[in-house]
């Protein structure tokens, strides 16, 4: 079986990427025309990779399950993208971005990958501006920045609360240019059903046309999986409804190791659950923590009064409020990293201080920011700074210009006006740091099969900092994969087109067809969603913000039982020759039912707390997460052996040459 060679180049950390790029094999422009590459997924990573590979001259086939590449869920990213430009002159540098990312990841990411990410971050901004991405600007016409959690500089570039949309539309436009030139062949409403290996190399995929139901064979010299994260294993998350793990799981079943599945990010500021009908959760951007202050009442009597509607939060006096992040973490205050902020909210709510009917909400309050900005504006305009009504109006205008779309979204969902009353927020599953294991070249443990963006595991360790997902997606797609893939493809210039009439394609297609007919002929008694919701509940209760050995063991057993029941009793209506969303969903939930168990196994194995992974058995007397560097400074890469419980653990030891591993403190 493939060993875990991370292929980190030799030499000093800051020279590794430059030296590596100068020494890897290249494919000549004439030969690139002879090589086909499949890209699965069209989010930031997939779209940018497809565009660049096509520009370089490769023939690209891109696949997405949505009706257009522009719908990929990167579009929903709100707050911003990090880059070490140091435009604000506040002491930022490549090293500092690298350091913050490794520290933010609680020392569980691969140093060389993170340094490369920080190095190419500045190119991303240049590239996007050249493409016409309309980032926010100041009155001098230059780019504006804001600050995100876990850092002490302002390095985040943004486009109001729609940064992901603007970056994705930029990458989509680069794709469109290549689609127009015929260098990318786009397959909308297609789902990757399996990976095809020939002589142990990735040589194509089986895809399904979701409109006609036709199962298709596609050959290629390399396959790139850019299918995003697996947060929907929790059923409720901030992911899109269609987001799934299937492409990543299929390659795992074919031999790609799956790394750190238990490293999941629970985002502190999401709109709380309103009832059993809830189908997904909506994020309120971390950028709001620049200006919003998080609090709960100090006294339980007032909590009760607020829950019963007898007291409004705006009536509560300043001294009766507990700004618990500012209290516990004076250095970073409301801008502590996401894992820390989420656990602190859970701690307060578990202690009975939650402010809504379910007891699972805290306040995010903009009143102080509105007053501060209002006074500033009044001063600039020479108006009366003591006129409270005027100051409020001016302040609200500033807040509207910064976060208008987020406030509107909140009002539509909750039916309350956040300009007048504090928002209610609660943590929700948002991002998965774990994913398919890749080496420095972003190749999985299957030769010729790559994983990029959220689908891989490499850059964020046990916790991702805000505004770093967009950075990683575009770095992988625009500036890393298109070059590292050449090193592998240089051996393929004489291979010729990959035939799809081979026994390997026959076998893969038959397995796909068998699975489809199994679902359709099952005629069980429960819908696909019934199982997905049950799985989500097990995951949230036992593998959520806080985990312990007993709960994780129970989770493994319960998920296995649920999976067995799913195959016996699931009911998938319709046929395989029509647009059948239930059939597509059945396949995705089947994969989640395997991943969930591996997730729990991974969490059970890692008895330390780190980043988003909090084991109750491993905490300091003050309740902070306690790492165990001696025993757990490694990546857990799981090898597929059929049943998830039988997966075999491979360890990639993490070595920190440049950074001293310390206890992460934001106090």
């Amino acid at each position, binding site marked *: 079986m493939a060993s875990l060679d991370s292929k980190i180049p030799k030499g000093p950390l800051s020279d590794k990427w430059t030296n590596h790029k100068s020494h890897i094999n290249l494919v000549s422009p004439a030969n690139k025309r002879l090589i086909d590459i499949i890209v699965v997924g069209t989010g930031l990573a997939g779209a940018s990779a497809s565009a660049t590979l096509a520009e370089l001259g490769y023939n690209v086939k891109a696949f997405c399950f949505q009706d257009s590449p522009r719908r*990929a*869920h990167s579009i929903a990213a709100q707050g911003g993208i990090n880059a070490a430009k140091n435009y604000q002159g506040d002491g930022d540098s490549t090293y500092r971005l690298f350091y913050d990312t490794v520290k933010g990841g609680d020392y569980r990411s691969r140093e060389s990958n993170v340094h490369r990410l920080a190095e*190419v971050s500045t190119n991303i901004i240049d590239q996007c501006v050249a493409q016409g991405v309309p980032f926010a600007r100041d009155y001098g*016409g230059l780019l504006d920045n804001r600050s995100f959690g876990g850092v002490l500089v302002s390095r985040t570039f943004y486009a109001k609360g729609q940064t992901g*949309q603007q970056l994705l539309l930029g990458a989509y436009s680069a794709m469109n240019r290549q689609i127009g030139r015929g260098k990318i062949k786009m397959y909308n409403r297609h789902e990757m059903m399996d990976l095809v290996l020939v002589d142990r190399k990735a040589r194509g995929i089986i895809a399904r046309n979701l409109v006609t139901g036709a199962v298709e064979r596609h050959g290629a010299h390399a396959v790139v999986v850019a299918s995003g994260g697996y947060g929907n294993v929790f059923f409720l998350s901030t992911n899109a409804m269609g987001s799934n793990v299937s492409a990543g799981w299929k390659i795992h079943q074919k031999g790609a190791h799956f790394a750190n599945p238990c490293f999941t990010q629970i985002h502190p500021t999401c709109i709380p659950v309103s009832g059993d009908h809830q189908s997904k959760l909506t994020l309120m951007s971390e950028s709001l923590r620049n200006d919003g202050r998080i609090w709960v009442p100090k006294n339980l009597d007032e909590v009760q009064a607020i829950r019963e509607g007898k007291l409004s939060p705006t009536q509560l006096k300043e001294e009766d409020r507990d700004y618990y992040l500012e209290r516990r973490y004076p250095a970073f205050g409301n801008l502590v990293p996401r894992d820390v902020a989420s656990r602190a909210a859970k701690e307060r709510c578990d202690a009975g201080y939650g402010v809504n009917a379910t007891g699972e909400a805290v306040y995010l309050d903009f009143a102080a920011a509105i007053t501060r900005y209002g006074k500033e504006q009044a001063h600039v305009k020479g108006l009366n700074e003591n006129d409270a009504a005027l100051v409020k109006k001016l302040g609200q205008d500033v807040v509207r210009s910064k976060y208008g779309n987020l406030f509107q979204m909140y009002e539509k969902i909750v039916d309350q006006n956040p300009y007048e009353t504090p928002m209610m927020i609660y943590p929700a599953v948002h991002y998965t740091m774990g994913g398919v294991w890749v080496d420095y070249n972003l190749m999985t443990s299957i030769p010729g099969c790559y994983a990029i963006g959220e689908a891989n595991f490499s850059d964020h360790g046990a916790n991702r900092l805000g505004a770093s997902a967009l950075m990683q997606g575009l770095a992988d797609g625009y500036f890393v994969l298109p070059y590292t893939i050449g090193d592998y493809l240089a051996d393929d210039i004489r291979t010729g087109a990959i035939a799809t009439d081979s026994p390997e394609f026959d076998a893969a297609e038959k397995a796909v067809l068998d699975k489809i007919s199994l679902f359709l002929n099952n005629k069980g008694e429960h819908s696909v969603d019934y199982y997905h919701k049950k799985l989500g509940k097990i995951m949230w209760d036992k593998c959520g913000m806080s985990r312990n050995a007993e709960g994780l063991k129970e989770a493994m057993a319960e998920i296995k039982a649920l999976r067995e029941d799913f195959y016996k009793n699931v009911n998938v*209506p319709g046929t395989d020759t029509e647009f059948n969303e239930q059939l597509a969903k059945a396949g995705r939930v089947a994969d989640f039912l395997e991943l969930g168990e591996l997730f729990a196994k991974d969490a059970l194995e890692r008895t330390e707390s780190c980043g988003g992974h909090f084991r109750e058995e491993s905490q300091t007397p003050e309740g902070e997460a306690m790492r165990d560097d001696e025993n757990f400074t490694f990546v857990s890469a799981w090898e597929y052996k059929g049943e998830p419980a039988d997966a075999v653990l491979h360890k990639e030891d993490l070595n920190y040459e440049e950074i001293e591993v310390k206890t992460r403190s934001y106090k």
Partner: protein
Amino acid sequence: MNLTLKIWRQANTTSKGEMVTYPIENVSPDMSFLEMMDVLNEQLINKGIDPVAFDHDCREGICGMCSMYINGEAHGPDRLVTTCQLHMRKFKDGETITIEPFRANAFPVVKDLAVDRSAFDRIQHAGGFVSVNTSGNTQDANNIPIDKHDADKAFDAATCIGCGACVASCKNASAMLFVSAKVSQYALLPQGKIEATDRVLNMVKQMDDEGFGNCTNTGACEVECPKGISLENIARMNREYLFATAKG
């Protein structure tokens, strides 16, 4: 809340469709419209009836995939929202709600309420980009200062989500608001000016080839647009087009 739903059912692009009535009970006002549809589908599946197909993905109003025509309006009665952000509190107990797909010749029905909007993609292939390679070897981002007002206007145009509500709302099924949003974004930025002539000619030609109708300035598109894309963009595109044709 108890409601009566009248929903367009159509098996595929070529088959004939019809309105079918379904009652639904115990709808919570806090549900989104699509969550209400989820509940309906769960009930249909349990009764052995084919669930209603509809497009949706992000459910936060940004991906542009959801596309229902509700009580005669694209994305329903609320303003500045997509169907996924429309909540049931906007309806009354006992109400009958009519749900149809976005209708236009250029948007053939895939199934039930899902339509094929790939014509929008093809318009973008024709010119919705700046021809710069993604090598990263461009000049420093701050070497191109851009007037904040222009940058903000370009951003406003660029927030179009490509849902097609403008087309569905237009009596001519015109795609002018969609196309002009992209033309405007680039026309307002220095990066886009170099190819402005070819871009507007190519995109408008593709729009016409796809079978979208003409614009007669009724402004229905602007009213129904979930992102508030302004009619000003159509005026700007017309100017760009006029200049481009005059330049030849």
